[in-house]
């Protein structure tokens, strides 16, 4: 006997499929999903219900639902819809009455993120991503005039070689001051954190306050601090802390205590100091846009990895890679008349191609990235991303603000000490290598890196409270000293319940007052 959805009976595969289709959630799911392939805005409730009726009454037939969708007013009066790479390629040829005469079409579509018979996973291709060349996404590009993006990047590259750059790195999941810079001789620290407390001789002494010790994993950063390259802002907080990771992270990302705020604090900075057409100015080194970079006015971009512009897909050789570049480049120049939408699409493909060519110079014949650096980065994804960033900056890309996420998650609740130590060591070693790399490239004076976490534990090990740590690492004395605050937290300031301690800084005012003037300096 089998039990599926509470129904009991002999079940074979046919009845299993039937049961799924008779499930009350199936008709709405089917109608919504099918609709989404044809119309870019969701149906209203009445339409969806009516479509469900059509679907179920037809005995679960596709054609009647399709007919209703294709005649729906929203298809004709609603917004335009992004064409998938394959639809776009087929359309180019179809409109021009041409046929396929080269294998390049395989690579063109594969590079654009849609090789037929090779969907990325069981969910299919994600229609939401406006992915260009698979690795680069430009947010806000739709508002740009054709070619503006190229020209702006070229112009900004020529003009902005001395611009200052702010790199912000989010360390997910509760790096708190009492773990990373701990009061080793404080008896209350040991009482409040019986399992998490480090031994008194672990880690180097903090040169700014002899009562504090570094977490051993942060040794690389402790040396940066001793050399005046690093500043610590411990125990940052905000009033009436929201105890959710997500809400707290959002507040730090947007820089205000407003859960509806949609632009990031760096995004708003770029809206003031940025160009209307240089998407590279705000770079999210991540698979999606980091919220701190979300702008209102100016375009920004995400770049998954500089090496993603190499041709590592499906046994593509270097020679084919060259063909691919040419194929994509020529596609960008294919249409310069007719439909402005097509022109825009071919334009963005061309733009991505040119950018890829510039980025592609870092990829060697072995398909691996070679950033020509003497700095010793850990062999991890995070290390490679930072190495790539240093190379991008050195190559003169017009980047003003960068956001990325550190590896690991420390909100483990179980085995937190171990998880924290492993993740923190990788991050610290990578950051030290990044700083070394920047100085070798004579970029140290232009770049400040801010490492922060959304959440810390309450002083008592079993409870939580929102806090943030910031490490601006810079090699110039001005950048470091002008933002320095090393007043340390002390458990003596804890209330009797051990639930909180006095804030030593208010992140928002600290940032907004300093960052704008600092970023404008050359």
């Amino acid at each position, binding site marked *: 006997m089998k039990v*599926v959805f509470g129904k009991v009976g002999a079940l074979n595969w046919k009845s299993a499929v039937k049961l799924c289709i008779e499930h009350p959630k199936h008709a709405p799911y089917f109608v919504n999903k099918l609709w989404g392939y044809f119309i870019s805005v969701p149906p209203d409730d009445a339409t969806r219900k009516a479509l469900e009726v059509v679907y179920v009454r037809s*005995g679960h*037939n596709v054609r009647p639902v399709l007919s209703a969708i294709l005649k*729906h007013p929203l298809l*004709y009066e609603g917004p335009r819809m992004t064409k998938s790479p394959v639809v776009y390629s087929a359309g180019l040829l*179809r409109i021009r009455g041409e046929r*396929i005469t080269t294998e390049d079409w395989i690579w063109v579509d594969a590079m654009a993120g849609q090789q037929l*018979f090779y969907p990325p996973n069981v969910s299919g291709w994600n229609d939401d991503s406006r992915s260009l060349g698979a690795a680069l996404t430009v947010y806000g590009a739709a508002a740009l005039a054709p070619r503006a993006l190229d020209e702006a990047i070229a112009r900004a590259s020529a003009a902005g070689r001395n611009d200052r750059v702010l790199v912000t790195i989010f360390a997910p999941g509760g790096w708190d001051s009492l773990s990373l810079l701990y009061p080793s001789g404080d008896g209350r620290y040991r009482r409040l954190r019986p399992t998490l407390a480090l031994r008194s001789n672990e880690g180097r002494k903090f040169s700014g306050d002899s009562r504090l010790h570094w977490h051993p994993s942060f040794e690389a950063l402790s040396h940066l601090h001793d050399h005046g390259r690093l500043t610590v802002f411990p125990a940052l907080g905000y009033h009436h802390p929201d105890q959710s990771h997500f809400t707290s992270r959002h507040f730090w990302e947007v820089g205000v205590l407003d859960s509806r705020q949609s632009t990031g604090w760096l995004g708003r900075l770029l809206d003031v100091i940025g160009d209307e057409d240089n998407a590279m100015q705000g770079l999210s080194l991540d698979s999606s846009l980091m919220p701190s970079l979300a702008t209102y006015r100016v375009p920004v971009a995400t770049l998954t990895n500089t090496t993603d512009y190499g041709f590592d897909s499906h046994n593509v050789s270097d020679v084919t890679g060259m063909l691919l570049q040419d194929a994509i480049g020529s596609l960008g120049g294919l249409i310069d008349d007719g439909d402005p939408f097509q022109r825009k699409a071919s334009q963005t493909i061309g733009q991505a191609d040119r950018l890829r060519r510039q980025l592609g110079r870092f990829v060697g014949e072995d398909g691996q990235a070679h950033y020509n650096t003497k700095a010793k980065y850990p062999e991890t994804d995070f290390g490679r991303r930072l190495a790539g960033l240093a190379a991008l900056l050195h190559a003169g890309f017009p980047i003003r603000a960068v956001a990325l996420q550190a590896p690991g998650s420390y909100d483990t609740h179980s085995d937190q000490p171990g998880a924290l130590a492993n993740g923190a060591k990788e991050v610290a070693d990578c950051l030290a290598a990044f700083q070394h790399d920047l100085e070798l490239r004579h970029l140290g004076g232009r770049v400040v890196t801010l490492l922060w976490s959304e959440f810390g534990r309450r002083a008592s090990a079993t409870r939580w409270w929102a806090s943030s740590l910031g490490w601006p690492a810079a090699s110039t004395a001005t950048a470091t000293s002008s933002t320095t605050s090393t007043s340390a937290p002390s458990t003596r300031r804890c209330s009797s319940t051990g639930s909180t301690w006095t804030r030593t800084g208010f992140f928002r005012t600290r940032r907004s007052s300093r960052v704008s003037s600092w970023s404008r300096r050359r």
Partner: protein
Amino acid sequence: MVRDPPFRVDVETGSAVPVYDGRFGPEEAERLLWRAGFGPRGGEEYALAKKGLHRTVESLLHPVGPDRLIGKPPQVDGHAIAPKDAFGHDHLWWLDRMVRTSRPLVERMTLVWHDWFATSNETVGDQRIMLQQNELFRTLGLGSFVGLAMRVTINPAMLLYLNGLNSLKGAPNQNYARELMELFTAGVDAGYSERDVHEQARAPTGWTTSTATAGRSSASGARTTTTR
């Protein structure tokens, strides 16, 4: 050869779905051709604008005449393409159908089903099996979703992709059952339990695929957990 089930309900009678009644000129026809196909072939949007919205949609849903491709077949480096063998030529073969088809909606729905029942040759590893699945989507794509889901469930490419082939008695593989419910039919929050998934997984066991015969699924009663 699988035939479409009969078309049972005319949506124009008794449907409460709003119908566009604005101007249907070349621009609207062109938009429809991009959504329901791959853009207009030269001048096609003008011809369809004359037909009007309803007759145009009907012609897309019920193409008449033989399924033919218009114009010359593709040639790469002076040779015909080899979709079953050469890497990437499966992509070229289908792209060519999209370019030259006289049934754009059928081809577009084939693409929709390829995305809906996403199966990757990365795992399947045989272009012939992938092309066979592609033909299934093309043949059944506008008909009964029940029939389509049934055929996909025992489709060799899908079986290979979601490890259905390893779904043997005693070690039911939950992949296909989970995706059947979550992605293909009912959504992620359909309120089924782990037990549902497990029981589902037991249902399709006993299917085998012969790659040598390019994927005819056959049932082997000895390995099933239930009667058919």
